[in-house]
């Protein structure tokens, strides 16, 4: 089932395009990795996908059965969060907020959902701990659990392994892959880690240089840039 279609989209700031002629689509259960150099417009594309920004031209269409409330998001960490006094549970619960309702508290079902998401991410024992005292990997798991509380359909991840050490990075990728395979959640990830992208993703979107590439990961490895990458030994890493 097609979930998202991007047609002839141009992105940029104040009328100046960074990316043009962007065409791609995402089906249910896809694992799309958006790669490109710094400044190639990855973050701008992310903001546009999240409906926080309008494209300069073209159209980004969600399938009729989806709304922006069904998209979960794993943002990059902000400075505010570094010293924020909040428990793991409070943060994961806050993901349920978009389920609506004018009650000034969370319902039983929402608390149950938050609990099961913490369990899936293996952070249930940390439930009462303070967020700012956790390790980088644990913090990402908390934010992932929050994103799951907000969606059952699509997860957008913005550089999910930035600043994590290699072991934790691998665990994080495996966790995301598991969500994709076992829960059927569509993954759209922005990353500059091409090695991980070709290993885990089913589709690649390479932006920032011409020609833009969009397609299956296997096809990406046949393109000049993909080949160059494979020859560097990136595939075996």
């Amino acid at each position: 089932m097609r979930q998202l279609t991007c047609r002839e989209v141009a992105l940029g700031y104040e009328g100046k395009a960074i990316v043009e002629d962007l065409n791609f689509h995402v089906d249910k259960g896809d694992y799309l990795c958006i790669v490109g150099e710094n400044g190639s417009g990855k973050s701008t594309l992310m903001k546009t996908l999240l409906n926080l920004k309008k494209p300069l031209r073209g159209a980004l269409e969600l399938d009729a059965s989806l709304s922006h409330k069904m998209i979960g998001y794993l943002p990059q960490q902000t400075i505010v969060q570094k010293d924020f006094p909040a428990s793991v549970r409070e943060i994961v619960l806050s993901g349920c907020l978009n389920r609506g309702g004018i009650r000034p508290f969370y319902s039983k079902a929402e608390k149950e959902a938050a609990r099961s998401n913490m369990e899936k991410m293996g952070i249930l024992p940390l439930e009462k701990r303070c967020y700012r005292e956790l390790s980088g990997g644990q913090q990402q798991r908390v934010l992932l659990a929050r994103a799951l509380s907000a969606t059952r359909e699509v997860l957008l991840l913005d550089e999910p392994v930035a600043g994590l050490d290699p072991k934790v990075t691998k665990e994080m990728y495996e966790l995301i892959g598991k969500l994709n395979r076992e829960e059927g959640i569509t993954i759209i990830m922005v990353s500059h880690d091409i090695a991980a992208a070709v290993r885990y993703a089913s589709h690649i979107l390479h932006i920032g240089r011409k020609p833009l590439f969009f397609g299956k990961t296997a096809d990406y490895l046949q393109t000049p840039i993909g080949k160059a990458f494979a020859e560097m030994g990136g595939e075996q890493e």
Partner: protein
Amino acid sequence: MSELIYRFQYYFSMPMVQYAMVVGVLIALCSSLLGVPLVLKRFSFIGDGLSHVAFGALAIATVLKITNDMLLILPITIITAILLLQAGQNTKIKGDAAVAMISVGALAIGYLLISVFSESANISGDVCSTLFGSTQILTLTVTDVWMCAGMSVLVLLLFALFYRQIFAVTFDESFAAATGVRANLYNLLIAVITAIVIVLAMNLVGSLLISALVIFPALSAMRVFKNFKAVILCSALISVLASALGILLSLLGTPVGPTIVAVDIAVFLIFTLIGKIFGGKVA
């Protein structure tokens, strides 16, 4: 000692002292609740800026001889708060510079207006009491008390109803917006509440000291507690007790505003110490 207790008993039999206590505690409660999201959002200085705007508005009201000056001060402060909190990210002049600019600008123009147009015999006395609170709180009328109580209840209700949303936009605004929570609306709500609290607090501690009422209880609570709810509750409790104690002490002859702030500072030092000693072992 018994003489001191007798003296307090005597003071408390006076309606104006009772009014001062009620109003003081309500204002302290509101400002401390609001302080937590403001401090965490890095908007600590907004209270300062807005209070100076409120002072400027008061000056205009005095010059225009408007009897109910709240009608002018409140809208002006609310509009400024919305402009500062909303446009903070996108304007040419960045957040802190904008606050500083508006803050000193309003203060200077306000004093200028009062000096030129006021017919009062004791201009510097008037200005001093507006800036530092002084004895103003003991001259409250019944109308003032009811108005203050009404506003406080409004602030408390809004805060309780939208507690979850306030948490969400404070912790991670872009996540909230991206997942369909109307983050801008709730930022607007925080801005409006901030303005109301500032205008209320002006009566209690004067416009130069309002920031203390907003930030000290929140900062103290954050030294010791590590989840949002506990920080909010602790902050409210600290603020209420510190203000009550401050008002009590001020009956012995010190100015109200600075006394309350002094108590808040003492509490902050104590909580910092507790935080250091227990090293985060408290809930």
